[in-house]
């Protein structure tokens, strides 16, 4: 009897202990998601008090909407520009800095600085730099006889410009992640590789560095992908989706529908679709990271 009483007391205590965390998760994540889902099934707007249940109408509208297709296309195109750079440039920088002895910490700090700054404020600095008339970048290009680029004004260019700004802000962060991964690789593996004849930089990279960096690389790839799909602040500040919707990305569209056009129901449907994409990435990471760790 005494044992089961003790057990019951402990079980009750356990529930009390997880209660605050459970409450927070429910209030901050689960309930809002359910509310957004319910909202996505209505035609609720911010400007009228009446709303009606419309079933999957919002989703049907979404998949038939040209504006939605355009935003999705823009987002994927932007991700395609951003991801290889965010991954490869950071990795190359990390390997180069890792081999530095003297200036390593200085370089680390320099590359990490953009991460510590506020992107919204820095976007204005970039706007000044990339100004088509008096911007430093165009002025410099013109000094060398190269015609200036209308960075934010041309439909074909604007996503590249946004990708450059995002790269500037994320490379330092990814580089630090890669540096941590590189530091964790035992030195004697490189020595064994040198004894075995794998002393060419490419051999060292493909035989030791890359396989040992697997989990870090997966983490960087997934977090960078999520960052790519979350693109919002620079768009909102610099282009407002223009010119002619050329930089209207997914999250910005959701914002427009909800807070500019007040179509809360439709905006909720868009948000849920976005959540689904992010969830896929997270799932991908959870499934493959464990399998990639072999030690």
């Amino acid at each position, binding site marked *: 009897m005494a044992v089961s009483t003790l057990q019951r007391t402990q079980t009750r205590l356990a529930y009390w202990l997880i209660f605050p965390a459970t409450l927070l998760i429910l209030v901050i994540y689960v309930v809002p998601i359910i509310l957004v889902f319910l909202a996505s099934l209505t035609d609720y707007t911010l400007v009228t008090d009446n709303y009606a249940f419309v079933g999957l109408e919002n989703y049907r509208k979404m998949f038939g909407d040209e504006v939605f297709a355009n935003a999705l296309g823009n987002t994927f195109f932007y991700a395609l520009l951003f991801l290889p750079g965010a991954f490869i440039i950071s990795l190359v920088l990390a390997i180069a800095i890792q081999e530095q002895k003297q200036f390593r910490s200085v370089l680390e700090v320099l590359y990490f600085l953009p991460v510590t700054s506020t992107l919204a404020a820095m976007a204005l600095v970039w706007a000044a730099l990339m100004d088509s008339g008096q911007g430093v970048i165009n002025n410099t290009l013109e000094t060398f006889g190269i015609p200036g680029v209308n960075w934010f004004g041309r439909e074909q260019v604007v996503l590249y410009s946004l990708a450059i700004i995002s790269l500037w802000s994320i490379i330092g962060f990814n580089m630090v992640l890669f540096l941590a991964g590189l530091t964790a690789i*035992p030195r*004697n*593996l490189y*020595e*064994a*590789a*040198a*004894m*075995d*004849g*794998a*002393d*060419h930089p*490419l*051999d060292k990279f*493909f*035989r*030791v560095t890359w*396989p*040992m960096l*697997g989990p870090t690389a997966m983490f960087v790839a997934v977090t960078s992908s999520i960052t790519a799909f979350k693109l919002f602040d620079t768009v909102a500040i610099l282009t407002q989706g223009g010119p002619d919707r050329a930089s209207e990305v997914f999250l910005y569209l959701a914002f427009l529908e909800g807070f500019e056009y007040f179509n809360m129901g439709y905006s909720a449907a868009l948000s849920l679709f976005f959540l689904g994409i992010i969830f896929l990435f997270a799932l991908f990471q959870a499934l493959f990271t464990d399998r990639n760790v*072999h*030690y």
Partner: protein
Amino acid sequence: MAQLTLKSIKKSFGETAVLHDISLDVGDGEFVSLVGQSGCGKSTLLRIIAGLEAPDSGDVLIDGKSVVETVPKDRNIAMVFQDYALYPHMSVGENMAMPLVMALLPLYARMPMMRSLTPMGRRAQPEIVGAVEKVAKQLRIDHLLDRKPAQLSGGQRQRVALGRALVRDPKIFLMDEPLSNLDAKLRVQVRTEISELHASSGLTFVYVTHDQVEAMTMSNRVALLQTGHLLQVGAPNTLYADPASLDVARFIGSPEINVTTGERERGLVRLGNTLLPIELDGSGPVQIGIRPEAITVINAIGVAAAEGPIDGPVLSIDKRRIEDLGPEILIHGAFTHVTDGLVRIRAQKTGAYRQDGALAQAKSLQVELDPADLLFFDAEGRRLQPRALDVLEKAGAA
């Protein structure tokens, strides 16, 4: 066919000098151990031989040719690392194949997936697989080729590391404390296997260890290092029986050699109240090294402990305690009338020792020393050779 010569190797890390002027010759097919306490520079010396570290000055020669400027892979040296340094993401077979892949394939064929795509890669594949399987059979790990290192026991990993080193047919085999991560039982077994490997391969071995037992049992010659200095190089028994200095005498032998202070007096040596029949020049104090196994207990009070004639000097010892080691016992005590006379005696469990209690109760013991087994050192620890010891011995025998 590989002779290794080290000429005046010097190495510092920043301000700290780790190797002072080390010169060493390793003959073809010889097994030489570099032994010393941790931090003595033995691993650094091995890494200099391997080419993983460059000496500040001095030269490394293999078969008379300087290799100091040569990268590790071109020295044709294999190395087994202390923690094996196996590639965790590769199978055992791939680990062992690595040196061959690097040696047989050009760079483009070594890139990911190119091995099966390029004609070069496909042509070399049977040779690589064949060589790996041959060595794996020899080391009895051929059933493990598909496993990852994480799935192996310590002993198996050790074999894979050996296999990876053997597979490319090196001239010189370097080992950096290869047994230190194994448990005691396995260590003895692998020790035997390494000795057999040395005998069957006929390769030149350089073996780094802090364990004198490993060094003594496996090597043709032992090189003893201390704080970056080479103290003595010689056959295991030379280091034991004829050490050049007190440091060597202290390092070799377990339990450690007993050291007590005697006084030179009228050409002889006095220990406590006893004048030892040793002729030693000079005057003043002298350090006497007595191996724990060179002391014979002849008498515990009331118990005769030894048979046979007594012809060496006899001293008395105040017994402190006895440790039972199983096959033998270790007696802790101190020479009577000697200020720093602490002494340990290793004795067999024969005859009188078996009589329960007698030795345990004895407070004082009579021991016999053999003058030929005594080692003498000056205050700085340099070895002193007694004069005409052989004459004394002959006199004793006659």
